[in-house]
């Protein structure tokens, strides 16, 4: 043996920083329709390939092709388009409201609208989502009132969460939307616990856990995988790989693995990678996973490949750490455009209808905003009661809190 050479530390770096030219040429993307659709009871080992490819339905020409196509009729697709357009409008207005100082903070979905909007339509009412802060599409597609979302964002007198939570940390139990935590990852194992509870109770409802690419490094990701694997919980575990975790590119969390979906292989969990900017693909894969879960076949891991086109939050300026041109170079395009083109291609949509829909949605969002602002914003108007701060710490207020509330003057 020769004397070993000195070691050195490998630190993963993105291919592109400000000033560099974005290059996604090493991102292998199969043609739409090219990836097979396994039987829902196919053995995880036999479908390993699904974690290294990308399920895609919409091709460049705007056609829906291949074995994952055909699940949704035009009506459903128009609805989906509307959900995504609504989410984007919602984001635009709330971003603006934040810049106007009407609230403290906001997080948008730009470029990722298909993921949560399409997924929600593949699940049933009664199923429970354990989301991150970047899945408001679950609420919008699920019919939750936008005004209530805004009331929460404004922390106003009508805020369902009584002003307690940071903007966008919604909770909507009746809409199958678990209370969002500011602590990354915690919800992933909770989703598995909910699913286990459903199985224990011989229910038919299933759960969906959500996590970002960066957050897969957290402990609770592992706990979720272990518990889901061991108890074959009826849960869909979604990784939203939007390429960035604040300033850190996805490669830092992914490490030597080729994809995030590959994580499932260590646990015998069927894992699929999907084009997250393709509404039809997300919907199809989610339906496949939901059927698996409902049939007692256990968990599925889905990696949604998408791109965070906006800043991490209103506190973030991405031009400090990534190229401004990256999104335009992003090879999976933009979800609203792509679904719109498809509907136009199949003769179920037109520029005129799109313009009109946009106008309607803009009106609708504006109307909701007006309604919400009538309940106050963070800086003006009606506010949630400060007294309410002492409620709900416990079901019944213990003596020490009663004393403190009194001391606070309420």
């Amino acid at each position, binding site marked *: 043996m020769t004397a070993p050479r000195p070691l050195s530390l490998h630190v993963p770096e993105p291919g592109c920083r400000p000033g560099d030219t974005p290059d996604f040429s090493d991102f292998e993307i199969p043609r739409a329709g090219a990836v097979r659709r396994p039987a829902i009871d196919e053995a995880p080992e036999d479908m390993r390939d699904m974690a290294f490819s990308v399920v895609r339905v919409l091709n460049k020409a705007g056609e829906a092709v291949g074995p994952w196509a055909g699940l949704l009729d035009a009506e459903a697709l128009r609805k989906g388009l509307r959900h995504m357009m609504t989410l984007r409008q919602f984001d635009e207005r709330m971003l603006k409201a934040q810049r106007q100082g009407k609230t403290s903070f906001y997080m948008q979905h730009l470029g990722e609208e298909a993921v949560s909007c399409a997924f929600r339509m593949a699940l049933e009412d009664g199923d429970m989502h354990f989301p991150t802060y970047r899945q408001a599409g679950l609420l919008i597609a699920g019919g939750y009132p936008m005004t209530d979302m805004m009331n929460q964002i404004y922390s106003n007198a009508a805020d369902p969460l009584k002003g307690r939570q940071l903007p966008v940390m919604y909770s909507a139990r009746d809409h199958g939307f678990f209370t969002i935590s500011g602590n990354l990852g915690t919800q992933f194992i*909770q989703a598995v616990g909910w699913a286990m509870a459903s199985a224990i109770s011989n229910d038919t409802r299933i759960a969906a856990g959500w996590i970002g690419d960066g957050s897969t490094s957290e402990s609770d990701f592992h706990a979720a995988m272990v518990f889901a694997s061991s108890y074959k919980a009826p849960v869909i575990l979604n990784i939203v790989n939007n390429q960035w975790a604040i300033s850190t590119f996805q490669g830092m969390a992914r490490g030597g693995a080729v994809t995030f979906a590959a994580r499932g292989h260590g646990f015998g969990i069927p894992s699929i990678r999907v084009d997250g900017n393709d509404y039809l693909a997300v919907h199809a894969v989610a339906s496949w996973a939901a059927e698996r879960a409902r049939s007692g076949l256990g968990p599925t891991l889905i990696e949604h490949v998408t791109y965070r086109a906006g800043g991490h939050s209103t506190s973030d300026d991405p031009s400090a750490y990534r190229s401004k041109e990256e999104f335009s170079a992003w090879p999976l395009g933009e979800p609203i455009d792509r679904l719109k083109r498809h509907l136009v291609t199949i003769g179920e949509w037109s520029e005129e209808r799109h313009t009109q829909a946009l106008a309607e949605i803009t009106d609708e969002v504006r109307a909701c905003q007006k309604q919400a602002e009538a309940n106050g914003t963070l800086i003006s108007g009606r506010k949630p009661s400060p007294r309410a701060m002492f409620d*709900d710490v416990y079901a019944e207020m213990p003596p020490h809190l009663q004393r403190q509330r009194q001391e606070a003057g309420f």
Partner: protein
Amino acid sequence: MIEAIRNAHDLAMERDKRVVVFGEDVGYFGGVFRCTAGLQKKYGSNRCFDAPISENGIVGAAVGMCAYGLKPVVEIQFADYMYPAYDQIVSEAARMRHRSAGQFTCPMVIRMPTGGGIFGGQTHSQSPEALFTHVAGLKVVVPSNPRDAKGLLLAAIEDPDPVIFLEPKRLYNGPFDGHHDRPVVSWKNHELGDVSEDYFTVPLGKAKIRREGSALTVLAYGTMVFVAQAAAEEAGVDAEIIDLRTLLPLDLETIEASVKKTGRCVIIHEATKTSGFGAELSAVVQESCFYHLEAPIVRVTGWDTPYPHAQEWTYFPGPERIKRAFAQVLEG
């Protein structure tokens, strides 16, 4: 005490289908301390089952089960191993009701053996109660005998909020007066070891005066209750000994009445001193009884070191140290 705890599980599971029990080795084997023995056999492995060795997984899954509508009772094998679950306890379970404005709640019980005195070394001896009492939204319970253990556990399971249930493992098999060199006694012949088989609860948030007295007030819980009693007998001090039973919420009323009566207060716990629960007790006693205090409040606690193996009886705040504290507070 083990049988009382086992029996409480049994009754709760029988009464309420939503109660599920899981944790490391709690299923087939019935737990390393056997507190869940027989439950899997009786209720099936979908209501009592083993968990992977993942404390954050256990509590995280329990949070999800609560969101669904179940009432999980989970075991952390030793309190020393709760740290991996601490985020799920503090950031999630404790704040769920508040952050969701009551939409989601966490009516779970997290049981864990606590305290030393069994030559467990630093990772089988800890008393981390103060790490829970600082967390708004939790309740924290420490029983000192089989009867309370059963009644408090049943009350904890009924409770709509998350309860940390700390079981002093030194008391599992018998009361302990702090004289480690004397023969071990069992609960068999002890009044509080005689536990009814019926369903009953001991309310959370209510302390119990174990010994009335007028010379000084002792605030203690768990293992230290009997040690304090022994010290009082041996020193012939007319101590009023309060077994707190619930640390959060605290029964300040009982404490206040006693200290106002005696004018002197000794606080005893096994946990390390700095920022231990004794600090909070000292602060509230001082706040509520300042003008009645005739001497400084004294804390008798574990030292600010890890719990050592060979020197555990030097670490343990035993009868001698307590008696010295009595003398000090009576002189003061």
